[in-house]
């Protein structure tokens, strides 16, 4: 209970702070996050990250001579609640910018409000629909499924492999990434020769893999999926003795996957954010100082292992802060323009170069291709 109670207490405290802080001269930054509920593993590190860094920025004198005040609400992964809180941020709290929207659903529900109120909105959710088509006031920091597919395809190209089979989970993540992979495959010169699917809770995928094994011409296998499914697929893959190169997605880029899949994970490749391999990056890597500093700060302040989700929140907050500094004020229109002009911003998710047609600003270098060797990540050069 304590962890949960603490979160609720914190949410209430923030809420009260939001209500009473009206008179102070602080500049308010809004956040609607899924701190509790099914997406709490995303929203919780996001909220902690924002709190840590808003305090940090204020301790260093704030931005443009003013202190920041974080006004965070918990939508419990409910898009309706997110919209209600967004209205409050706009009308009562009068925030100058919004960093948040943990889930794609919540983000899409809140977009019209911020567009209408003309307040910069930096989303932390995954889907490409948030920034395609480009909306004037909406930005996002996390990389997309499409980029993960392209990264895998680029790696395949380097190994001179062109024909792949997909085995994807039928959950939202697996489906979305499967669709993106199939969509970008022709452009990358990759042929998807065979497709299989499995339920997110299935406990044996050998029939699907047997069919892939029997298919002639397949040179590599890709498994878009999330949760425990990919770990079981990996085990079954080795059980059947399939020797084709095997790719997992960024959805399982965590130590937990290696633990669950065990020795079967050896040789598996997957695209992942630099944050996960912070200490392993070469010193020449421009992202290294940023991701190492974030990792240390987060782990020291929270005592919890790092996740890419908190990193997205860090990137969102810093992009806003940098833009406000360049704008020299908190004028919403000026800040928005400066966010759009973000160039060479080095965040945890990659090097961000935004433009009027690209409100994400990441390229494929944001993903690192990793290979699991002896139960640990290694960078594929």
């Amino acid at each position, binding site marked *: 209970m304590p962890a949960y109670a603490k979160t609720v207490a914190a949410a209430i405290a923030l809420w009260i702070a939001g209500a009473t802080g009206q008179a102070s001269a602080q500049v308010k930054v809004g956040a609607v996050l899924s701190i509790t509920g099914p997406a709490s593993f995303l929203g919780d590190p996001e909220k902690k990250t924002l709190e840590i860094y808003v305090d940090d920025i204020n301790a260093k004198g704030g931005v443009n001579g003013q202190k920041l005040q974080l006004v965070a609400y918990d939508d419990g992964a409910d898009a309706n609640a997110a919209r209600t809180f967004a209205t409050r941020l706009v009308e009562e709290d009068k925030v100058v910018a919004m960093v948040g929207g943990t889930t794609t659903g919540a983000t899409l529900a809140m977009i019209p409000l911020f567009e209408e109120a003309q307040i910069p909105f930096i989303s932390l959710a995954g889907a490409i629909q948030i920034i395609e088509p480009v909306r004037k006031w909406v930005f996002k920091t996390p990389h997309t499924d499409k980029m993960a597919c392209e990264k895998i395809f680029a790696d395949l190209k380097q190994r001179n492999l062109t024909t792949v089979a997909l085995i994807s989970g039928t959950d939202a993540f697996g489906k979305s990434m499967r669709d993106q992979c199939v969509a970008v495959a022709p452009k990358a010169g990759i042929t998807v020769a065979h497709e299989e699917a499995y339920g997110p809770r299935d*406990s044996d995928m*050998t*029939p699907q893999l047997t069919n892939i094994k029997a298919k002639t011409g397949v040179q590599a296998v890709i498994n878009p999926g999330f949760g425990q499914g990919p*770990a079981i697929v990996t085990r079954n893959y080795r*059980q059947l003795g399939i020797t084709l190169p095997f790719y997992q997605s960024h959805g399982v880029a965590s130590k937990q996957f290696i633990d*669950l899949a065990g020795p079967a994970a050896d040789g598996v490749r997957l695209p992942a954010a630099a944050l996960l391999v912070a200490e392993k990056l070469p010193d020449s890597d421009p992202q290294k100082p940023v991701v190492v500093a974030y990792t240390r700060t987060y782990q020291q302040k929270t005592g919890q292992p790092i996740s890419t989700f908190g990193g997205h929140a860090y990137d969102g907050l810093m992009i806003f802060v940098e833009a406000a500094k360049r704008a020299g004020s908190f004028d919403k229109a000026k800040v928005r323009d400066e966010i759009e002009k973000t160039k060479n911003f080095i965040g945890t998710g990659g090097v961000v170069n935004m433009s009027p047609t690209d409100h994400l600003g990441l390229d494929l270098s944001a993903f690192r291709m990793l290979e699991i060797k002896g139960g640990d990540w290694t960078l594929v050069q």
Partner: protein
Amino acid sequence: MPEFLQFAFSGLTVGAVYALVALGFTPIYNASDVINFAQGEFVMLGGMTTVFLGLAGVPLPLAACLAVVVTVAVGLALHRFAIEPARGASAVALIMITIGASIFLRGAAQVVFDKRFHSLPPWIGGDAIRVGGATILPQSLVVLGGAVVIVVLLWAFIERTLIGKAMVATAANELAARLVGIDTRRIVGLSFAISAAIGAVAGILISPITLTSYDVGTLLALKGFAAAMLGGIGSAVGAVVGGLLLGLLEAFAAGYVSSQYKDAVAFLVILIVLLAIPRGLFGRASVERV
């Protein structure tokens, strides 16, 4: 041919998991006509408790035994604090209570344990056994063996012991059972303990294959329940046959038809079977379940 064999092995692996879960429904249903929808949570508790005791440094065999004890305690508490106070309510109302208990246990597990996935090492060797070009993991055979042992023990308990007979009597007619001096409350409580124990053993045996997490029980219970219905709810043999059949259906549907629609194919067959034989393959007529 190796493909066929591999599909069959996959079906047996998954089927054995379903069978073990389905078996857990049997004692409670037999004693009280209640379908315990918290059965999946017993399975989860067995696996998760073992994992966490193991992480705390307890040797795994001991951790497994403790996990069974813990789960039985939860089963007894469920009976004592949720089912017992509602005594006299209809079976449907009691089923609702078990659904509530299931949600509660899942929430509690989220807080007591965590929200991550965990695995247990296989109980015997991890290397796949090769037969005719197909492979099966030794752990699948352990699960299958576990299901057989539980069926035999249940059968011996019901048919060969006085308490077992009392349980059958309670199910047949609670009032009459009480009139001949059977403490029906205690019998129903006992059935919860047995179901919890079976669930815990199931969780411990299947975790190396299915992995486990706080919410693993929901879908397992659903599949286990489908298996139990297919085999005829209340029948231990039916639970095992139903489980294996469901597993094989899914595997062959995934292999030969489409992996996208394998669940649909499996459930379609169940629907057809239940339309033809509403009591399930091994179900006894409810009027004289003796």
